[in-house]
């Protein structure tokens, strides 16, 4: 990975960032849900690139495999299952005034978040000279995640697995056709 201060790094960081924003805007403005879903996938790819550039290699890979590759696929399945591909059928936006108001609200939210970020959490945003975490270099990217996951956050890990179980069961039950065997 080139040094974070190098031009190559910065150019690509901004590139992926702008692509992510553009894809997000495109995603929000598509009429057809299928197009929207695909644009969301694009956003996720760009985010994955950013994760890798930020040094979270494992998360970047996970993002592609799980988020873009599984969750979005499920979305697409459902969209196509419900046959919602036709343009203009059910994907109309909510009125002109609604969009204007939503835009204003969004701007307000953004402004507030930026303001809060700058004023309150200014301290501590200096990048330290060396990365904080470092461990035995032979653990690799996965080991850096796995070690805390299975030691510090073991309880959360277990609870999450139960959550997945519940979700599976729930999805099956809800999605079952009534009256059918």
């Amino acid at each position, binding site marked *: 990975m080139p040094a974070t201060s190098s031009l190559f790094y910065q150019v690509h960081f901004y590139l992926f960032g702008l692509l992510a924003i553009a894809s997000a805007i495109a995603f*929000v403005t598509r009429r057809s849900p299928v197009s929207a879903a695909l644009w969301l996938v694009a956003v996720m790819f760009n985010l994955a690139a950013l994760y890798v550039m930020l040094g979270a290699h494992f998360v970047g890979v996970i993002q592609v495999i799980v*988020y873009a590759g599984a969750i979005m696929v499920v979305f697409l399945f459902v*969209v196509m299952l419900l046959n919602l591909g036709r343009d203009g059928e059910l994907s109309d936006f909510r009125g002109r005034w*609604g969009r204007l108001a939503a835009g204003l609200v969004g701007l307000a939210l953004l402004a507030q978040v930026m303001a809060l970020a700058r004023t309150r959490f200014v301290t501590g945003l200096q990048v330290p000279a060396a990365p904080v975490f470092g461990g035995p270099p032979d653990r690799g990217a996965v080991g850096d995640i796995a070690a805390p996951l299975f030691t510090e956050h073991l309880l959360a890990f277990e609870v999450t697995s139960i959550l*997945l179980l519940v979700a599976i069961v729930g999805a099956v039950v809800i999605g079952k056709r009534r009256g059918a065997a």
Partner: protein
Amino acid sequence: MIPEALALSAVLFTIGTIGVLTRRNAIVIFMCVELMLNAVNLSFVALSKLYGATGQVFVVFVMTVAAAEAAVGLAIIIAIFRHGHTVDLKNINLLKG
């Protein structure tokens, strides 16, 4: 890079919010929520560069929960579609009253 990443995260989050408020299709709204989750993930990852691996661990959890949520949520949407043959938000008002 980290402030830029946080700014990007805020912008994506905002776009996701606007999408939630604007769209009428339930599935698309759901997808906007996913976008918001992604923005938050970016935030976590960016800050994990400062504070250690815990941020990335949390990202793993977020993704897991997002998956579970997507499954159940879409199942519900399918059930609603079976009930009223529509996923237009305007027509889903059984919570009324």
